[in-house]
Structure formats: structure tokens, C-alpha cells
């Protein structure tokens, strides 16, 4: 710390007076520049409660450079008068015999610090002539504080290796910490909130014994996406305005042909205990490539593969991956989103079993109150919409869709007749937006993401 000398001198002065002292006066009496006193005040303040200093500002009048010149040499007018020789000049008749240099006297008064003797009008007049200026001076009114003493002891800020080595820390005083301030933010990377939620859902499925399906194929044929799921070819969902069709590669050419024939038959003629849809099923329609509209297409592929096994074994499958819809976009809908899907295939699965699995699944999300409502999907019968009670909104909100796959879908694959397959699904974005309090989906997914939100988002704990 610079100049403990000044600081201590200051302290001694304060001790002598009752009340307090003005820093400007102190500067005068100590014979130092005011700024030095200000520096001392600041360093004393940093020590704690030694002194308290109240900032004051005062204005006083000062002479400008020109003003100073006039004070010394007289005003311009006087000088002109003074330079007229006794013989006079032609204009001398207009002038008075003698003058009193009012301006110079006023300026001298100010210079001697007696500006208060002057009227405002006079001062403003001279200010206009740029001979005087009003200057704001900041000073401190210094008083004693609770830890006042006339000696200055230096405070340390941090423990150093030398102090540890020598043990000198024992004799030192340390500056108090400000525990109200925040610490330094660590320089780290961050995971995306939607992916954090995905990790949790993945965890839940694995905990329940579900195996992950290979869903790394965004491009799918209409056959697997629609036809194998017993969704008829004229269904509105297969329209241009709901589905993204490809121009390149436009068509798929490889299919399990025997199976395809069975699918064709069940659509157009029926069979397996069904009347079918009774329309002309076209191969060209099934060949059309699309961006998959649901991951249920992958579930279909997996169930077909399962059916090709020598003997049937029960399975539990899940997937969480991207799907594409060519629909109208708004604050909560994008063309791409993530679907969560769970599938259980076993002998004699019932609707009660589906409800049981759903209860177990949603319990892991902290949702225990569920209700079911009949719904319609082309590929499940029965179908149920799943609702949970939202304590905040005080109403039942839809949390998912579920059902039992139709026999027209499973039997052509070659699955045994007494095997039933239950499935359910929900979107990943919706629970994420609820969890992280996001209203506009574009702030969460895509390049317009709010990076600050990504930096600040908390751990994903779905059950609390």
C-alpha cells in the first residue's frame, strides 16, 4: 500500500477533531495534493471499519487561464486605458478620466477564495466571458468508525506458499471475503437438454429390460412404414401433405417377397380371420420411399425378423429416434421430432398387461395417476390414449398413445397366433419442454437454439 505515512497522518488528524474532517481541508493542512488524500482514504476504507468516508461534492469558482492573466495584468479595457498616452488619442473624449478595473478586482477576489462575496449575477457574467468557470470538487467527509486506530496495519488478501513455508501467516491479518458475490464459472462444455432427457428415457427402458432397436435409417419404404402395419394405401396419412416423399432414390426395390405377397393379400382380400380392406393393393405405392413418419416402421422390421426365428422367444424392444412429418409448423410443432416407442411381444398379452407396463413406465417418470381412453390407430386394436393428472393445470393431460397390434399385421409376418404384441409411444420434445419450461420448440431444437439455455440447463431428473 502506498504512502502509509499520509494515511497515518490523516488518522492522527481525525483523532484530534470531534465529528469529522473534510478531505480538502485535510489536504491543505497536511500540505499534500487532494488526490493523495483521496488515495489514503480509499486504502483506509479497504482495511475495514477504521474510518467512514462520505462522498460530498461542492462547487467553487475558479479562474480560467484568461481570467488568471487578467487578474495579474488587468482587464483588457484597463490595459487599453493604461496604454493611452496623457496627450490622448482622438477617441479619448469618449472615455472617462480614470477607471476602476472592476473586472480585475472581481477576479482577484475569486482568486483569493472569496467568491462568496460576489453576487451570482456578476459571477455568471464573467463565466459568459470565459473568465470564470464553476468547478465541481469531490471531497470526503471523514469520521471515525468502529475499528478506529491511529496505526495502519496492512491486510493480506491470500495465503501464499511462502507464508505456509515460513509460518508467517500466523502474524498476518487477512482481508475478509465477500461471500455475497458469485464464484468464477468453470470453463466447461454442456450437453443438450433434449439429449439429456433422451439419456434418461433410454435409462428407464434399459432398467425395465427393453432392448434397443436399430433405428439408424431415416429413409424407409412405404411398405415397412405403412403397408406392413396394415395401414391402407388410400389412407390420408400417406398423402403428400403429411409425408415427405423422395425424388431420389424414389423407389425401394428389395423386399421379402413372400411376406409382401401375404401383406398384399390381407389388404385386398382379407385372411387370417379378417375381411381386409377390399381394395386394389399396388406394389408401386408400397415401393415409394419416404422419410419415416414413425419409428413403428422399425418395430415392424424387428417383429418380422423375430417371426423368422425357428422358435418364438418373447421380446421387449424400445427406440428413441427422429421421425418426419410434412405438416403445418407452429410454436410446438416442427417437421422433425423424436419418437419414443416401447414394444412387448409375448404369449397371451392382454390389455391389462399393457396398462401394467404403462404404469411401471410412467411411475419411473414420477407419474402414478393414469387413465385410459379408447382411441383409433390403423394398426392397433384396441387402442388407448394415456392420460395423467397434472397437479399444476388441475386437469388430465395426454401423455402417450398405446395399443395392441392388429392380427392383420402380425400374422402375415409369421408370428404364432397366440402371441400378442403391445406397444406405446410418446414424443421426446413434449416432456422436455415441460421439464425445462420452454414454450417455443425452436429454442430447443435446431440451429436457433438458445445456447445460454443449453449452458444453464440443470441435470435431467425425470422422477422429481
Amino acid at each position, binding site marked *: 500500500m502506498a504512502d502509509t505515512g499520509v494515511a497515518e497522518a490523516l488518522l492522527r488528524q481525525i483523532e484530534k477533531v470531534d465529528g469529522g474532517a473534510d478531505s480538502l481541508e485535510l489536504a491543505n493542512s497536511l500540505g499534500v495534493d487532494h488526490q493523495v488524500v483521496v488515495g489514503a482514504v480509499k486504502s483506509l476504507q479497504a482495511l475495514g471499519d477504521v474510518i467512514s468516508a462520505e462522498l460530498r461534492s461542492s462547487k467553487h469558482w475558479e479562474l480560467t487561464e484568461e481570467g488568471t492573466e487578467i487578474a495579474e495584468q488587468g482587464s483588457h479595457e484597463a490595459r487599453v486605458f493604461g496604454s493611452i498616452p496623457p496627450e490622448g488619442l482622438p477617441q479619448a473624449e469618449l472615455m472617462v478620466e480614470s477607471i476602476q478595473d472592476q473586472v480585475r478586482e472581481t477576479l482577484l477576489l475569486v482568486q483569493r477564495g472569496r467568491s462568496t462575496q460576489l453576487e451570482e449575477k456578476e459571477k455568471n457574467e464573467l463565466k459568459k466571458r470565459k473568465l470564470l468557470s464553476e468547478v465541481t470538487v469531490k471531497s470526503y467527509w471523514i469520521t471515525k468508525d468502529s475499528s478506529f486506530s491511529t496505526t495502519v496495519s496492512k491486510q493480506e488478501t491470500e495465503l501464499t506458499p511462502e507464508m505456509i513455508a515460513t509460518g508467517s501467516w500466523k502474524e498476518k491479518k487477512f482481508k475478509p471475503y465477500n461471500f455475497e458475490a458469485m464464484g468464477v464459472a468453470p470453463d466447461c462444455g454442456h450437453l443438450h437438454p433434449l439429449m439429456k432427457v433422451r439419456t434418461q428415457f433410454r435409462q428407464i427402458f*434399459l432398467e425395465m429390460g427393453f432392448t434397443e432397436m436399430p433405428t439408424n435409417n431415416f429413409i424407409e419404404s412405404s411398405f415397412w412404414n405403412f403397408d406392413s402395419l396394415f395401414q391402407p394405401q388410400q389412407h390420408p396419412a400417406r398423402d403428400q401433405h403429411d409425408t415427405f416423399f423422395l425424388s431420389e432414390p424414389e423407389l425401394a426395390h428389395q423386399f421379402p417377397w413372400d411376406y409382401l405377397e401375404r401383406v398384399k393379400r390381407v389388404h385386398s382380400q382379407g385372411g387370417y380371420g379378417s375381411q381386409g380392406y377390399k381394395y386394389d393393393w399396388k406394389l408401386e405405392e408400397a415401393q415409394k420411399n419416404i422419410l419415416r413418419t414413425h419409428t413403428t416402421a422399425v418395430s415392424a422390421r424387428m417383429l418380422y425378423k423375430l417371426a423368422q426365428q425357428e422358435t418364438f422367444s418373447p421380446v421387449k424392444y424400445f427406440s428413441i429416434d427422429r421421425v418426419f412429418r410434412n405438416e403445418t409448423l407452429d410454436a410446438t410443432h416442427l417437421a422433425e421430432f423424436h419418437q419414443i416407442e416401447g414394444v412387448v411381444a409375448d404369449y397371451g398379452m392382454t390389455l391389462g398387461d399393457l396398462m401394467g407396463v404403462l404404469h411401471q413406465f410412467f411411475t419411473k417418470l414420477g407419474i402414478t395417476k393414469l387413465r385410459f381412453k379408447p382411441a383409433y390407430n390403423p394398426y392397433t386394436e384396441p387402442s388407448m390414449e394415456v392420460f395423467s393428472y397434472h397437479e399444476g393445470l388441475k386437469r388430465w393431460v395426454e401423455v402417450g398413445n398405446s395399443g395392441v397390434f392388429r392380427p392383420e399385421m402380425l400374422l402375415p409376418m409369421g408370428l404364432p397366433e397366440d402371441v400378442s404384441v403391445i406397444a406405446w409411444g410418446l414424443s421426446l420434445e413434449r416432456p422436455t419442454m415441460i421439464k425445462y419450461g420452454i414454450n417455443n420448440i425452436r429454442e430447443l431444437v435446431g*440451429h436457433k437454439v438458445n445456447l445460454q439455455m443449453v449452458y444453464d440447463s440443470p441435470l435431467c431428473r425425470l422422477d422429481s
Partner: protein
Amino acid sequence: MTDCIVSIDVPANRYDLLCLEGLARGLQVFKNKLDAPRYRRVSPVSGDRQRLIITKETAAVRPHAVAAVLRNITFTQERYDSFIELQEKLHQNICRKRSLVAIGTHDLDTISGPFTFTAKRPGDISFRPLNQTKEYTATQLMSLYKTDSHLKHYLPIIEDKPVYPIIYDSNGVVLSMPPIINGDHSKISLQTKNVFIECTATDLTKAKIVLDMMVTMFSEYSDFLSFFSESAESIAQLLTRMCLLSQTTGDELEVEIPPTRPDVIHACDIMEDAAVAYGFNNITRTIPRTYTVANQLPLNKLTELLRQDLAAAGFTEALNFALCSQEDIADKLGKRISETGAVHISNPKTADFQVARTTLLPGLLKTIAANRKMPLPLKLFEISDVVLKDQNKDVGARNSRRFSAVYYNKTPGFEVIHGLLDRTMQLLEVKAVRGGGYHIQAADDSTFFPGRCAEIFVCGKSVGRLGVLHPDVISHFELTMPCSALEMDIEPFL
């Protein structure tokens, strides 16, 4: 007592619930206030049945037709409105905006059978259409209705055909020119007592379903329908409340499916109705005994592990769209679209949906551009799929899992991106040696600044590139600072 508004969600496969009559009937039967109806076809009291003759000319434009007569009907204004509304709903729904089926309803007492459904050249058709005062030819009607906000949508269904469908009675009176407009002569009024319903179609199955709906829904206003009721036990009772008349015969259940339920095509549809009648929330839930051991997909497992450590390395995860414009993956990166092997979408609504991405880089750069005001440096990464054409796959395309990272700052930071690559290889247990491990060597790539691009080789095979981005690329993505980037395949590391 305040009014209560109930919102009823009619699923897409229940055409019998589209009108008030059907809905009310279903509810009453369910609540045991009405017996489940049995619909019967009844012959006329006097005279022969009506006939609709279909000529071969219709094959070129609208091959199928079915018809029925509702006799002794009494219309009120409400019933009339409901009748018209059901036709409209069916037109929009199962009829696919009249393209598959079109319904025409006529006052039977204003016309006389047998009726002929044929097709003629537009210039040869002339009649007075509904609500008009003079006759028009079909050609004139096409122009007349071009400005009609309701009918103009249906014109394209027959407009360009050489012949238009047309239905006549035995006196040459035009009943209708489906699917556009009926004739004014046979229009139905509140005084109509007998209704002739014709459904012309390109899909016969759907035409029959539609006709069944029209007839069954409004048969209650006819004095000629009788209802039977039967009692049965438990499931049979439940089903019957759902309008699926059932009885037990020994161990089995015999169920009669009415024409109002074309959605019932398999026993599982019947089972669902039983469950609905029972009440889904009354079903006891059980836990299946299925014992399985879970397996993670290796590619996803690897991705999950890597993500964590990349965030630990100081990079932030981004999540970008798989669909983008052609420019994004080609022009803006200094490449030609034909080189990319990209998959193209045929019906994009905007340029943002032209192709599926073949690289993760544009998404990351757009994320930086949208977050320009964030403090520098910006360090982003993404591990996700791109889509590439592939003749070896059944659909002709496959996904490829990529890892990409960018560093955006006042200085390009190649050494930072390079360091990230080294760290990643360390995590993947790939040593920094030629041959058995990985190495990088200089490469030419129009996306990168000349002399500042390297190709990454693992066991002699190229897996990706890294480097300082070319200033043109930086500008194309509306960025202003130097930027270095890395993109590589991670599937080889499985």
C-alpha cells in the same frame, strides 16, 4: 342449471357416428334405452324394385355405382339439415373429397325409373343444375363453377376426361352429373317422402359403405324398419350395447355386424368394443411375466459415452435438423450438389426441406450464426446421423453416424480442434501411429482454407477431415470470425 358442452372425438373409422342420429342411437343402445337395431332391406309394397343400369362408357371415368331407396320418409328442417350435413361429412371423409365416392340424393316422386348411369362427351350433356334457372352444357358448367368457392375443388376430378358421368331417368331427366352437381328437377325438399340415393365411385367397396351409412342413419325416419332385440350374457350383453348384436352358442359367441360398422373386419374389432363397453379404466392391470435382459445398440452406446467426454473437454452439444437446403450442403461449402450423394425430397414446402443432410457442418455453423452474441470462443459439437445414397440397402439409402465439432473465435484455433481429435482418439483407444493407429496428413478440400486442411486416417482408411474453414464458407454462413472444424465417421470405431 348451466349448459354443459361435451366435446366428442369421433375416430376416423366410425362413419356411423358422424351424424346426430347415429351418435344418439349408439348412446341409447349403450345405455340400454334402446335395443340394438337390426337393419333389413325391405321390398316395395307395390310394384317392382327400382333399377340403376350402368353402361360401359362409365368405365373410362367413374366405373362403379350403387343405389338405394328410403321410403315413407318424413323430413323436418332439422332432419333435412342433418341429412345434407352427413353427405358433406362423408364426402370429405371416406369419399376423399368426392374423388372416390360421390353421393346424390333425389326426390323419387319427381323422377321415374329405370335409371341409367352412363358417360357422355361434355358437349352432349345439357341440363338445369341445382338452383339455376336455365340449362347449361357440361362444358359451360365447368366454366361456371370455376369461380364457385365450394364446387371449384371438384372440377379437376372429371375436367380433363373425354366423357363425363351422368345419370338419367327413363324420361331423359338428368338426376346428377357426379361428382359435381345434381339436377334441379329432382332436388329434395321438406315435402319429399321417398328418397333415391345413388353413390357413384372409383372404389366399389367404399361406395357400398357410404350407401349403407346414408340408408341406416336415416332409416329411423322411415316407417318401414323394425327393430329386434335379444338378450345374451355378459360379453354378449356388452357387445349388444355397442350395436353389435351377439348371442352365445355353447362356448362361442355369435356376433352380427351391422352395416353401420364397416370398421369391424376382424374379431379384434369386436373385442375392442366389448372392452369399451366394459370401460377401459375398469380393467384390472397386470404385470406381464416376460423375462428379458436388455441390450443397448452398440452404436448408441458408443455415442452416449463419447458425448459425455466431449462435453467434459469443453465443447457444447448442438442438435440440428436432418433436413436442409441443397445450398447448405453444397454451394455454401464450396462443393457441387452432385458430388454429395444426397437424398432428395420430392415435395418440399420450402427450400429448407430439399435434401437430407450429408454433413453435420452446416447445422453447427448455423447454430453459431444464430448465437453470434454469445461470448467467444464458441465450441460446439454434435454426434448424429447424416443420410447418404447407398445402392446396397433395400431402400437405396442409409444413415451414417458422424461426429463433428467447430471452434469459432478471433483466432482459428486449429490446434484446439486438433487437440480435440487427439483426445477423441485417446478415448477410443486409437494410438497416434501410422498403420495400426491414426495419423493426419495434408489434403485439398474446397471447404477448407488452402494449406490448412488435413485428412484423418485410421489403420490406413480415411475417416474424416479437419481444418480451418475457407473464408468463403465462413461468409456464406453469415459468420465473421475465423473458424476451424472437424467431421469424422464414428461407425468404424465400433
